[in-house]
């Protein structure tokens, strides 16, 4: 299947009082039709900024997409006009946000918040939009959907609100759904439900999904391909099996080690990654992960490695061959 979305060399920066924050530094990836791309990385690594740039929801100023292309079905979204972009948002590409507590408008009913997108994009009557909204609410598993149409967000639990957000995202049957840490603020059982729900809806509608998370467990559940981001760079990219079975980048390796495992011994402490990510205003000259990396060699401090093919479809940005313990 072909590419639905192709991001090429995307660079995003923010002008702040302290200086220019290089949030995304030349990110390229492809989302295939009907497939799920997972983006992993710790807070502040540029995951959200990347997808917000795809939606052109970065506030300018202070933000600025300084270079790159975002090809959606062949069109560069960074070049089309405002009205055209409004038609794509919600209709072609929909987004589900991280915190369902703050991402829904507290003073409007959820019915209104879902149906307005339907009315805007499909130009249907209020009655038709109401019917479709109730169907969507049933689809995402909200009981007594019709009765809850006129309820406000504060009358729903966190998980239910995220279901409402997903219903909103699905309202116009988009070809790409971007989920920006949709399960982060939910407890584990609800997380699992939301992941299952998304998977079943994906197979039903055949849409592509970009799923952002810092939870590798969720990635294993949902993703076909995985991108690992660090300090605004993609450091490793592979299909989901290779990432878990055959990680190449030291950062991915450390992430996997810091994952709790059911079969680990009870009193064993989880591995941590020492230090913190670099200051994106004053980026180090070499590899941004170097100071925290156990494998670092001299070259890492001088030159930042590019994302290169390691084998078949597996890319990584590292000077060191981690598996064999020698520099490439």
């Amino acid at each position, binding site marked *: 299947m072909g590419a639905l979305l192709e991001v090429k060399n995307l660079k995003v920066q923010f002008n702040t009082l302290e200086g220019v924050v290089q949030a995304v530094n030349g990110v390229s990836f492809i989302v295939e039709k009907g497939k799920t791309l997972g983006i992993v990385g710790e807070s502040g690594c540029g995951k959200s900024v990347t997808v917000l740039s795809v*939606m052109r*929801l970065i506030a300018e*100023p202070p933000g600025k997409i300084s270079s790159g292309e975002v090809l959606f079905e062949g069109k560069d979204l960074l070049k089309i006009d405002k009205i055209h972009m*409004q*038609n*794509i*948002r*919600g*209709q072609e590409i*929909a*987004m589900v*946000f991280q*915190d369902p507590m*703050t*991402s*829904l*408008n*507290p*003073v*409007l*009913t959820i019915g209104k918040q879902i149906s*307005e*997108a339907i009315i*805007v*994009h499909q130009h249907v009557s209020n009655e038709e939009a109401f019917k479709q909204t109730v169907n969507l609410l049933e689809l995402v598993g909200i009981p007594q959907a019709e009765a809850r149409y006129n309820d*406000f967000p*504060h009358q729903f639990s966190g998980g239910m609100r995220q279901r409402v*957000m997903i219903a*909103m995202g699905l309202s116009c049957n988009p070809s790409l759904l971007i989920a920006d840490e949709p399960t982060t603020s939910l407890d584990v059982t609800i997380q699992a439900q939301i992941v299952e729900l998304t998977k079943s809806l994906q197979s039903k509608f055949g849409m592509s999904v970009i799923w952002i998370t810092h939870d590798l467990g969720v990635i294993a559940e949902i993703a076909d391909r995985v991108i690992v981001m660090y300090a605004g760079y993609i450091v490793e990219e592979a299909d989901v099996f290779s990432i878990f079975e055959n990680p190449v980048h030291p950062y991915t390796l450390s992430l996997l080690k810091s994952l709790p495992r059911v079969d680990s011994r009870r009193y064993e402490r989880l591995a941590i990654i020492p230090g913190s990510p670099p200051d994106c205003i004053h980026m180090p000259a070499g590899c941004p992960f170097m100071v925290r990396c156990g494998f670092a060699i001299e070259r890492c401090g001088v030159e930042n490695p590019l994302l290169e093919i390691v084998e078949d479809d597996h890319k990584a940005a590292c000077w060191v061959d981690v598996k064999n313990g020698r520099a490439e």
Partner: protein
Amino acid sequence: MVRYIIRRLLQAIPLLFIISIMIFILLQSSGDPLATMGGRRTTRPEDRARLSRIMGLDQPIYLQYVYWLIGNDWVQIDVDNDGTPDTYGQRKGVLRGDFGNSLVNRGKTALELINERLPNTLVLMIPAEIIILFFSLVVGIYSALRQYSLTDQLITTGSFIGFSMPIFFVALASMYIFAVNFRKWGLPYLPTVGMFDPKVGKTFGQVATHMILPIFSMSLVSISGYSRFVRSQMLEVISQDYIRTAYAKGLSERMVLIGHALKNAAIPFVTLVGIDIPFLLGGAVITETIFGWPGMGRLFIDHLTRYDTPVVMGILMLISLAVVICQLLTDIVYGWLDPRIRYN
């Protein structure tokens, strides 16, 4: 909801009592209404004593309050102080709708004076408030949307200057420009004082042209303050996650602003307006004085300086009642704007 409103109104009764007691004591302790009653001549001591017995000013302050509240037609008054009561009191008291006679403006009741002035004040203040609210919203929202643009900087600077200028300066400056100098330059000029030209009479056109300068002065100062408030409220709301969600749905900027942002930003603004509206009844003391507008503000200040307790009490109680009602209305509007607020 109905129960809530009834409960709030019942709660207002003791509140109004306490307010009236406090104002009454302060007023009665602040000066002597008899002092200016003789005009340029000094009042003879025996006349003063007789007047103060007629008006009940010789009584202890708590009795004076009781008379104000429930009247003194059940009390016999010894006007000539010879030991035998001559007549019953004339007052019916506030609870029976009698706010008493004006001490200064003899022959008129306090309510008559207020009734004469209140329409004049409302004619001036209601259009002023509508203009103020409309332009504060427009200017504030515009400047929030174009934050740090040249227009925003100009508006911010302008409103800072407008807000810093005292109203009497704005009023006099506007008179100087639009009345004095425009006339000098042969341009159509605006009148400075009064509600209408006595030679023409109280026509719609006359009153409207006389309103322009006072409304302009009041609006300039108020819009400057309010629009800053609206701007900061809007800025706070448009940085919220749900506004981003609304944009992500593909709504246009106008739909996001009017459908999603404004209702959220309006909540604190309603508070501010709810506090201000009751004072419209009181008129604008400085503006009315400078522009010679025969409204409540001037009535208040004229009668306060001559210690005319019945009239001043009447005005203050009217405003207190309006405050109570407006606060209730504000709370009801809150419930409509923000569904998280419940009344039980």
